[in-house]
């Protein structure tokens, strides 16, 4: 695929013609979330099962400031990046000391810590009811309260995020992280402090997650408790894996597929997480390399037969 960026641009332009702007917005927000996770999962080989920690924390903090202190959009996004990065620094510091299964379990357990704090601290977070009333402030004279206007803002920010992530993965850091994934012992022998680089990946991934979290809060006008919960963490892992963790664009495809799936199901049944779980199970059992992998295999195969 020679020009994936062109395809992405086309998707950004055409998507709101196919689905409601709010859903299209959600797709790009989730894609940003997935890009952050994939730096850890695809590039560094670290399965973080607690990304909602950074997504949700940023959403709550920025949401609180937006609601009670009337900060502007860029400040809110800045806060989101900062909170996402900081919470990732704290969580990452504890997690990168262990590897493999322990790492996965720790990311999950620390996610639960943040979840319980959000659940109990009802005076600030609203507990189970979430934090409603998140405004969508204007930028200069532009009002973003219409779904289309917000879609334009979010998709522009998505393209910006994609460009930033592209720079990161094409930089020496990107290569060092992949080296750690390929052979951590050799990467250290060659002169890289692996835990520190993993922590850096964590922080960058956290920043992306936080950024997405703030956009999410402004999209729905509420920060739901679920946004910091384990199901959310699992959703982004699922989306990234089925999109294909081996490429930069995998999480984008995964986000499209996942949001479309979950939105279609939520209108069918109140117990739609069950259907989502069934979808997970089916996809995992039958569509393993991910959608990107499946496509690239078909692509290579068709090239050989011509």
């Amino acid at each position, binding site marked *: 695929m020679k020009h994936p960026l062109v395809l992405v641009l086309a998707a950004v332009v055409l998507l709101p013609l196919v689905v409601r702007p709010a859903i299209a917005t959600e797709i790009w927000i989730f894609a940003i979330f997935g890009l952050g996770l994939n730096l850890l999962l695809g590039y560094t080989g670290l399965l973080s099962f607690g990304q909602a920690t950074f997504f949700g924390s940023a959403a709550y903090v920025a949401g609180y400031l937006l609601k009670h202190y009337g900060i502007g959009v860029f400040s809110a996004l800045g806060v989101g990046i900062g909170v996402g990065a900081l919470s990732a620094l704290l969580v990452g510091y*504890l997690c990168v000391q262990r590897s493999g*299964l322990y790492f996965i379990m720790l990311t999950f*357990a620390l996610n639960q810590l943040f979840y319980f704090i959000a659940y109990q601290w009802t005076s600030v977070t609203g507990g189970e009811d979430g934090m409603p009333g998140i405004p969508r402030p204007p930028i200069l004279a532009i009002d973003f309260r219409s779904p289309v206007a917000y879609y334009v803002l979010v998709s522009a920010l998505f393209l910006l995020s994609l460009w930033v992530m592209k720079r990161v993965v094409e930089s020496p850091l990107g290569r060092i992280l992949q080296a750690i994934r390929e052979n951590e012992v050799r990467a250290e022998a060659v002169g890289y402090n692996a835990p520190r680089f993993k922590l850096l990946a964590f922080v960058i991934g956290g920043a992306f997650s936080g950024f997405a979290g703030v956009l999410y809060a402004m999209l729905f006008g509420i920060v739901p408790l679920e946004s910091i919960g*384990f199901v959310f963490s699992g959703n982004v892992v*699922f989306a990234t894996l089925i999109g294909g963790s081996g490429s930069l664009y995998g999480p984008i495809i995964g986000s499209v597929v996942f949001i479309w799936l979950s939105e279609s199901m939520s209108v069918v049944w109140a117990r739609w997480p069950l259907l989502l779980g*069934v979808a*997970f199970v089916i996809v*995992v*059992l039958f569509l393993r390399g991910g959608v990107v992998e499946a496509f690239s295999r078909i692509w290579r195969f068709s090239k050989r037969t011509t």
Partner: protein
Amino acid sequence: MTLLLGQILNGIATGMLYALMGLGLSLITGVLNIPNFAHGALFAIGAYFLVSVVGLLGNFWLGLMVAPLGVALLGLAIEWAGVRRLYSAGHDYQLLFTFGLALILNELIIVIWGPVGISHLPPALLRGGMDLGFTFYPKYRLFVMLMAGLLVVATWLFLEKTRYGAIMRAGIENKEMVSLLGIDIHRLFTAAFALGAYLAGIAGALTAPIRGLSPGMGVDMLGIAFVVVALGGLGNLLGAIAAGLLIGIAQAVVAAYWTEASTAVIFAVMAAVLLVRPQGLFGIR
């Protein structure tokens, strides 16, 4: 003071249940190399099965025997139908499978038993309190401590003293070696999953009369089970007990003074221990 002692006793009771959960998870995760995200759901189903069986047969003791077996069977089915098929796809996919399963099971509980919490009384024999000298303490909780202790001992005996237990421990250390020795590795996986599920199921069944049931009980317990394994170490029986008791008592003591923070304390204790000892309570660096 009596309040504190009473809370410590509560902490021991719940701590033993946490240890059982950690142990079951540790077996599944250690042998199959995947964190079992459905473990909390298995716990919850154990509790709900108990309620249903007692409702059907009218006998708590029968329920306590049958419910965990039901969960073990469920574990067998999960391993056979899904986890095994994904062996070649790699750990990420097996993990996602258990996650999807957790979603399904948690929702199924709501579908079958309803979204509202249920309370379940202990059997007549175990109702009321016992005079321990410094306080009256609920008989049922003493029973739970006893039962959980017996189960831990039984698991220990199985792992340390039987041939199959040794195979399971070896499987946690080195799967290749075990299969090279001619042992059917797939049967080992199934056995580990079934045993782990059994432990989760009986922990759930025992919990039902203490805290009541709610659809969310599985998710809450899942995180705690992970904490026990992270602190205690995979396949480490002593570690699971130590970690379980530590967080159980910490939670109970904090609950006396600051109820809201009591569950968060479990994770805070974990974070604190790991800051000082990244390898957990007993791990080697």
